[in-house]
């Protein structure tokens, strides 16, 4: 028998189906627990450079030191918009666009928190950009229903 046609690709499907149980370090766990149970947003002070890290981490990347678990700082609800983008592309397994992702530096912190920037008019790029300027004031909002995840907080333009 003679093959006379170009073979169509022979596809073999394989699947990775993995669930991971990530154990948080003590600092991260305290931040997420406090966020869920008390609705408060915490930073932590590096004992060497004195930067207030938000979100708090068990080490400071600048000084290569551990942070002290008694050096907690409660952050205010005000902050400054440092980075944003308006996402338009749909990606399987991720939320349906459009949405705004942002980094906001809370008052009293030296670094910025990631989160959704909500309550923006996304009907057009122009309407969204009218409310989106780096350096503008935003409010850090804690959702009424919380599960101990970073998405328990979000940002909205300060009125």
């Amino acid at each position: 028998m003679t093959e006379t046609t170009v073979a169509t690709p022979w596809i073999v499907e394989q699947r990775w189906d993995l669930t991971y149980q990530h154990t948080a370090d003590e600092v991260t766990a305290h931040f997420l627990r406090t966020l869920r149970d008390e609705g408060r947003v915490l930073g932590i002070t590096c004992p060497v450079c004195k930067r207030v890290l938000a979100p708090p981490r068990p080490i400071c990347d600048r000084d290569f030191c551990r942070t002290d678990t008694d050096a907690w700082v409660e952050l205010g609800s005000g902050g400054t918009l440092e980075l944003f983008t308006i996402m338009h592309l749909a990606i399987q397994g991720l939320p349906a666009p459009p949405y705004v992702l942002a980094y906001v530096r809370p008052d009293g912190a030296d670094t910025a928190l990631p989160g959704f920037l909500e309550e923006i008019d996304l009907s057009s790029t122009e309407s969204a950009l009218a409310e989106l300027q780096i350096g503008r004031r935003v409010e850090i909002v804690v959702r009424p229903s919380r599960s101990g995840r970073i998405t328990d907080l979000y940002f909205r333009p300060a009125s």
Partner: protein
Amino acid sequence: MSTPVQQRPVAAIGVGQTRFGATKDAGTYVEMLHEAAHLALDASALTIDDIDAVVLALAPEALMGVNHAERWCVDFIGGRLKPVMRVQTGGATGLSAVQAGYHHVAAGLYDRVLVVGADRVRESGDAQKIFNKIWDPFYERDLPFTTITMIAMSAVRYMHRYGMTERQMARVSEKAHHNGALNPNAHIRREVSIEEVLESRYLAWPLKLLDACPQSAGGCAVVLSSAGAVDPSRHTPAWISGIAMAGDTYYIGDRLDPSHSARGFDYADAEALAVAADRAYAMAGISDPRAEVDAVETYASFSPVEIHNAEALGLADVGTAGPLFEEGFFDLDGEIPLNPSGGVLCTNPISVTAMVRFAEGVLQIQGRAGAHQVPDAKTVVATGAGGSHQFFNVAVLTSEQRT
């Protein structure tokens, strides 16, 4: 920093690239490794028996879908009973693998090293599903961050600090596609106009579809040689006169205060690229890159990245590269051609994207770049970038031995 010991000079003597294209049209992962390795060996007038050690460039294997895939790869890279290592620094992998091979030879351990890799970026349908998994599991993963949002936010910051326009970004893309159309190995080989770029749909503001790289498949390989193993009758060596790397913090939120940067850089800029470039230039004895560099192949997965990379590499003052792109300074026939191959905007097979930058630099030095050859290229810079715009490496290739 320690005082460097005397290292042996190292040259790239041959490179191989498969035709890059869409994953569905490409060969299997391992066949592409084999093809690229053979092309590089042929270009070096060597066989696999002449190779002392092999370095495999394999970025996150979730892209190609076989875990611990160096097991599958070893026969196809000629690694049986040879020293074999695998290198992984995300998008920087291809140049990190070259750097590992460089150190093998420079240290005097081996005379000829094969560096080889491949990728099939759309094996799972969309690499961005996988890229969401590179973020911090506690603080960032629950948010839909991807490599697209990562670069979009850097571009927004750069616009804010330096006034970059979407038209300047589009000009970068027009230039890249013009060059890519001249490169027979490029994945995307068609010209696009500035207007087409500006009218293409937004992915993540301000990035549009035609500001973005494709998700490519293909393989690349490089043969590195000690000076003693270079045969002038067969080889046109491209000397690795400088090669260096710098990593940056995982946390984008920590890269927003210019007062914490010696250069006054923040997430708008590519600080670790600038640090790596300074190290590589110092090794190569380059004090004025604007005057001394003839061409650059830089890792820029979206058009605005070429703009801040040009500044981090010292080719333009900070905040001024956008207008220079508009003036044609970085065109193929401009003062310093940037990505004469079309760059990453035309071809992005992630594991080897940074190696392709290096391989294209070698071809430029050898005078073998064909229609996208930069005339009389004697000093060429190649860069890689990986992680959350986080791991950067820089190589300086020269036609003359400097080290």
